[in-house]
């Protein structure tokens, strides 16, 4: 009998309201070693969901469990195994990538020798070597995103959460980022990512979650989603549009 892999992230009845409900009693399960992509129209609640998972927002209701740790009761333990990367890379202009990675490793209490070896590997994989000791102030968006990604990976997180990480990146940089993420999943890590680029979801995701109006309206592999629409949709784009249209009609 095939056993389910361990659960990396479990959301149960998670809700968040601003001036209107942004996330509405959301249940979501992501398994260890899985590449999970959340898609949905603008304002669907994707980013709010992920920001609650990483502890940047507190949910109004529900529970969040990361790698077996109750993230609301023990946020520090949950953060120890999690990395967050947003679409707008937040790095320090006056630090070099090398210094930035040392800073991040220090925050996560990583052994200096281990962190340094990882930092060197990441700098190499992401093609940052020529700029490793330049201050980030003159870096392009792609370079900054690569530095931020290296920062997210330098503490070897079990769960990596990325919000639109490929926005504004050129093809070469986007491929480097995708390769690094694939490599992490191959090594047993879990990746949860939001994207508006449906081809990326189609190609990279083990499972796709479609979120609209703060609720998960469909979930599964691309085949599962196609079956769910049952309208002969061929691409994820068709499937996605059909699912969202159904949701709008239902609402």
């Amino acid at each position, binding site marked *: 009998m095939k056993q389910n892999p361990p659960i990396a992230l479990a959301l149960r009845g998670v809700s968040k309201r601003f001036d209107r409900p942004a996330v509405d009693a959301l249940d979501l399960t992501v398994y260890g070693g899985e590449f999970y992509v959340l898609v949905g129209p603008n304002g669907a609640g994707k980013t709010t969901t992920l920001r609650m998972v*990483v*502890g*940047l927002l507190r949910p109004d209701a529900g529970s969040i469990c990361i790698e077996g740790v109750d993230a609301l009761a023990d946020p*520090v*333990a949950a*953060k*120890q195994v*999690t*990395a*967050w990367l*947003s679409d707008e890379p*937040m*790095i*320090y*202009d*006056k*630090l*070099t990538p*090398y*210094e930035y990675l*040392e*800073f*991040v*490793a*220090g*925050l*996560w*209490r990583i*052994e*200096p*020798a281990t*962190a*340094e070896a990882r*930092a060197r590997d990441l700098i190499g994989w992401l093609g940052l070597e020529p700029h490793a*000791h*330049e*201050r980030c*102030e*003159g870096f392009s968006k792609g370079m900054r995103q690569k530095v931020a990604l290296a*920062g997210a990976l330098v503490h070897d997180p079990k769960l990596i959460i990325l919000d639109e990480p490929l926005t504004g990146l050129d093809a070469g940089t986007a491929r480097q980022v995708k390769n690094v993420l694939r490599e992490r999943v191959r090594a047993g890590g879990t990746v949860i990512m939001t994207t508006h680029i449906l081809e990326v979801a189609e190609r990279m995701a083990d499972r796709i979650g479609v979120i609209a109006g703060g609720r998960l309206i469909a979930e599964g592999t691309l085949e599962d989603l196609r079956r769910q629409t049952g309208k002969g949709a061929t691409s994820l784009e068709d499937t996605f549009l059909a699912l969202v249209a159904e949701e709008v009609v239902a609402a």
Partner: protein
Amino acid sequence: MSQPASLTWLAGHEFRLGWRDWTSLMTAGGRTRARTATIALIAFAAFMHVFGFWTVASYANADLESETSALVGITGSLLLSWSLLLSQAMESVTRAFYSRSDLDLILTSPASARKVFAVRMGRIAGAAVAIAVLLAAPFINVLAFLGGARWLAAYGVVAAMGAVATAAALALTIALFRVIGAKRTRLVAQIVAAVIGAAFVIGLQMAAIFSAGSLSRFAALQSDWMLSHAPDTHSAFWWPARAVLGDYGALAGVMMFAVVVLAASIALFSRRFGEHAVAAAGVSSAIVRHRRWSLRFRRRSPARVLRHKEWTLLLRDPWLISQTLMQILYLLPPAMLLWVTFHDHNDSFVLLIPVVVMAAGQLAGGLAWLSISGEDAPDLVATAPIGSRRILWAKIEAVIGMIAFVFAPIVAVLTLDSVFAGVVCALGILSAAAAATAIQLCFRVQARRSQFRRRQTSSRLATFAEAFSSIAWAATTALAASASWAALGTALVAFGVLGAVWLISPSRA
């Protein structure tokens, strides 16, 4: 209606941008804030007129034209104001060079770039003139109200000073570009601006300390040496002073000089402006700093890592360095007074301590904003496995550590002469810095470090509270240093300011 891309059309565009920039600086875009800002401005103008009445009313009807001492005094005051205007104009010119904003649009449009930059320089001059006129207005209005319309000529002199300051700032900044290049000009220009702004005041105070043993800058201007070496009263050197006193011939000469100098500098530099702006825009991508904070990763606790990061960012911030330098420069006269005091062995340190404490409070406020609110990677820090209280403490420790580093030498020197004075000064510095940091904590916002210049916009209450708190702690330490029980009263006021801040702070809501 003016033709598109004509000088008047471009001037209109620049004026609109300038106006919106100013209004957003004052109101941060909020309608309620616009009302509050208007009321605050009216109150400030009223206060300045009262202050103007208090300081210059006695001169309104005096016959000053034939007195060398009056001409020296007015000229010295004009030079003092001009040095500050020059400093402000240099900062504006440097900012115009380094803010990329619409540079690409201008250079790729069919409009004459020279014309656009000429108008932009005109806008900088206009802003300098407006600031000068607004600041001088209360004093001139009081003099004109009490002494007659002849004093209104001073408006012309002040406007001319703004124009000449802009011309000089353009010349100085472009000279820096040519001599040291675009890479270094930003930092050096900011430091030069700070030094110019402070140099004249400090020079006069130094002279006053050595000649009269006081901090009054007017003591030096009225010294026998100064009066005996002043040019003849009929010299053209006194034209600005004579113009202030209502000599319309001198006023015409001063204004004509200003217009010619500004027009010549705009004509001369507008062609170069584009080249330098392009060079400045390219600096950020060309900058390579191979300095590292360590050769290898080092073992540090998260709190220490945070403190180290804060200090590194503070030390690598050219704007902050220039501001800190200015604060330190302003501490030079008190330091000299300290030296003179020790030499004479009297108790003038009572004068010195509040100056130092005030400076510490103000510097701590700026550092605390940078450290607590100006976090460029808030998500990274917030998602790190450290408690939010520990993060805040590390940032507070970074601020207090920096203040200790800057002020320790002064406290040490003071302690050598009087342990009591040293302890009081150290406690005052610590209290003022802690209070300023607490105020910034209460009013913390999420902002980028690059918004430091506009930090007052986010909360004027925080700015005023910071100033009141520093003044209260300065008064407390001065009274404590003179062993007066009244220190308890001012300390209560200082705590009262903190309590009020806590009650109205948005972070409590």
